[in-house]
């Protein structure tokens, strides 16, 4: 029976890439807890990417079929041609594995002029994954054997560079193509022990085990109307692990304290724009933008995609309008064109203590980047190098600790949504 995939992707324990992570010292010391979180998830993610494909099974099947088709020749020559996107290292590994399996089946590998049978193995691929195509020439007969091989997913590695001020750290990869709207790390400090994931159909609570995220519980989000395209959602988590989830026309309240409980109802409550429930809020429309109606005495210039406070406790905010113009406050002056759609404020100990992160101006078919900017008064200027994403950033929200932001990106290579923590350190 067809079933949607659920469950946690394998993360992992300490791995081979640990030396790539910069040490924390000097000015970084204050950010040790943050970097601890980053290190924890980076190591888990990087190890997951190095899990090798098991070629043995395919090689064993190949040897079996050759024996069947060519009558277990005592000697065989082997030529391997790579017509796929497999890297050379994998080709060498496959050669070794195939040779081992052929030998185990009683076939000695020899040069073509000494062989009873000749095997040309083409490492091919089709729409579904790798395909080994073996042409066996035995006497005057030739036969082809086709063996599909399990496909390894290989999303690009995220990394921490010691040379930039904006850090991107992998948190979560959705196991299927369901859009992730927001995630929240629970536990905090150097011990992030749980993750709350809001997607288009449910809120899920995962616990960090030694080697992977383990799904503890999910609560479905029942809805009576279709979601809008480019669905957006926001998670707001308190210190007591009580949370609120905001979706267009719906609000859910729950607790991740012991298990996961949640109740949802139709509501047009204003969404929080900051990191806590006391901050400014804005009403969200039925599509993918805020209507422009605000609470807390903050004025907006009209419909907008996202907003961020220019300073802590500031009454003046930057707005990225639906026209993709950057607008400061509700002034009547025209905004500045050429901006993207997402903006979030992050607290740091650098510069003026607060930086604003922005995404750029392509569309959902393109890779993306997030740029940190410095705010001075009502002015804004880029600071440091941007961090790149292998797909569009579809959500950018400030995290509950204010020291980081959550970015969700659709990986164009895998088609799956990935969540990252973005934080800033000083050089």
């Amino acid at each position, binding site marked *: 029976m067809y079933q949607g995939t659920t469950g946690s992707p394998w993360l992992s324990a300490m791995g081979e890439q640990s030396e790539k992570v910069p040490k924390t010292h000097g000015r970084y010391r204050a950010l040790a807890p943050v970097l601890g979180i980053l290190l924890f998830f980076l190591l888990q993610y990087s190890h997951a990417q190095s899990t090798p494909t098991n070629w043995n099974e395919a090689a064993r099947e190949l040897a079996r079929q050759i024996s069947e088709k060519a009558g277990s020749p005592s000697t065989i020559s082997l030529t391997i041609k790579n017509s796929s996107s497999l890297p050379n290292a994998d080709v060498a590994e496959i050669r070794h594995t195939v040779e081992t399996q052929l030998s185990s089946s009683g076939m000695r590998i020899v040069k073509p002029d000494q062989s009873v049978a000749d095997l040309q193995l083409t490492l091919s691929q089709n729409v579904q994954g790798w395909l080994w195509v073996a042409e066996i020439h035995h006497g005057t007969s030739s036969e082809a054997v086709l063996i599909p091989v399990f496909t390894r997913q290989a999303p690009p590695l995220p990394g921490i560079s010691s040379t930039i001020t904006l850090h991107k750290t992998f948190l979560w990869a959705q196991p299927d193509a369901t859009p992730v709207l927001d995630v929240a790390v629970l536990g905090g400090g150097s011990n992030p022990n749980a993750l709350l994931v809001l997607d288009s159909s449910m809120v899920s609570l995962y616990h960090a085990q030694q080697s992977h995220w383990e799904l503890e519980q999910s609560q479905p989000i029942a809805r009576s*109307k279709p979601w809008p395209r480019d669905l957006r959602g926001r998670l707001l988590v308190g210190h007591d692990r009580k949370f609120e989830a905001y979706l267009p026309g719906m609000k859910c309240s729950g607790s991740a304290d012991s298990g996961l409980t949640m109740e949802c109802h139709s509501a047009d409550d204003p969404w929080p724009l900051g990191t806590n429930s006391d901050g400014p809020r804005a009403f969200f429309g039925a599509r993918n933008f805020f209507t422009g109606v605000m609470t807390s005495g903050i004025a907006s210039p009209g419909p907008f995609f996202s907003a961020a406070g220019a300073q802590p406790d500031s009454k003046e905010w930057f707005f990225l309008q639906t026209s993709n113009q950057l607008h400061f406050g509700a002034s009547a*002056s025209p905004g500045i064109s050429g901006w993207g759609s997402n903006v979030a404020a992050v607290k740091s100990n650098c510069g003026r203590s607060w930086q604003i992160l922005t995404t750029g101006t392509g569309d959902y078919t393109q890779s993306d980047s997030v740029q940190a900017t410095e705010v001075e008064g009502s002015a804004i200027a880029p600071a440091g190098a941007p961090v790149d994403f292998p797909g569009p950033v579809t959500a950018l929200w400030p995290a509950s600790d204010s020291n980081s932001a959550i970015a969700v990106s659709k990986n164009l290579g895998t088609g799956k949504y990935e969540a990252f923590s973005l934080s800033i350190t000083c050089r």
Partner: protein
Amino acid sequence: MKRSVFLLLAASILLAGAGHAATRPHYGGTLRIELRAPLASLDPAETEISSAAQSAQEHIAALIFDPLVRLDEKGAAQPALALTWQHAPDFKSWQFTLRSYIKFHDGTPFNAAKAVESLLKIANPHWRVRAEGNDSLVFESDSPLPNLPAELAQMRYAIAHGSGNAISGTGPFQVASWQPGKQLVLKANDDYWDARPYVDSIEIVLSRSLHDQMVDLDLGRADLIEIGPEQARNAVQEGKRVVASSPNEVFALVFNPEKALVRDERLRETIASALDRVAINNVLLQKEGEPSGALLPQWISGYAFLFPMAHNLERALQLRGEIMVPATLVLEYDFSDPLAKAVAERVAVNARDAKINMQALGENLGARGSSADLQLVRVRFASLDAPTALSNVAATLSPADAPETRAASTAAQVYRAESAMLNGFQIVPIAQVPEAWGLSGRVRNWMQPRAGGWKAADVWLDVSQGADSHAEGRP
């Protein structure tokens, strides 16, 4: 003043990186499409003959109708109007559970009985379908149906209600006005179960020549036009925005089994050996296709290279010396397809290299029984699932029932079935070609599916590039 300068500076710096990042989609506007096919019916169950008409029918049907399942970019079946499905161990029985609370555009509730009514219009002789309750469909067959979900993902099995001008679907767009062969106007389905499209409407002009389409794109009167694969390179060099699928059609020669002149297999092999597929691809297809001795392209099957495609004039001449050669062979091609004409004429030249006279004639293929010795046929795969794609090709090229093709599900079985089809040179593949589209600058979020088609519901229009005013705020 200082603030403005600073903002401008910042904006200019960030703008330098534009085109490298993402903007949220905007709602509103009208997407203007032009097609050359004179499509006469919107009914997905009706069979179009020419490749261009099949293409138009598939693309337009996907705007109005939903299938039970869809294939993702890896060829795996995903839920559409059916949420789940299961099969008996022998694959002779399948049960599909349908989505609830879906309505056709005319307000009629979608249910199992309506789905059966729609599916029976195709009258597939290989399976029977019946409703079980309100939300369950049961398919049964005397032979295994291992590829049924992929088969049902094709647009010809999309679920429709009603007929003629009153036909209605459950898809992202609904018909606002329809002039067969001339113009179709669609408006967004606000209640679409898979989320309302970004654009408010789509206008499709039919029967528009490729030349006129190009002019309209240049003048800003169209957002999406067809571009022949052989024109794609030129269009890019002229600065146009062009997107293309992976190869989704195959050109092949099909010998007429009724014609005595081509009954000798050696004659057919002579012509196959004389074909210079690489030259056809390099010159006529401007390297946008893939020369191939296989029917299915490498990206779908993974084994296309196993079928020889080398130009072997020596072998052709050797065979030519062994056989009785007719005075002239007649090769038919679709008169409405300029690319087919060019390929057919090149095939005739290759045949003459092997000292066989061949005359290429443009005809309305499918309008009547062919009296030609062979035809140049252009066939759409209509699926990225290898067994289904091969079945579609087989249904067009070999009218005789081919149970081994229908029952194939593994790569090895599909390879054997394709080998059987090509054995004896009754069918000789030449090249596979992609579909290409020209886009205006205001089309955003264009995600070209590998197998061809449009994801029009995900497209949005950048109003700063002209035409529509931005409709905002209306839920």
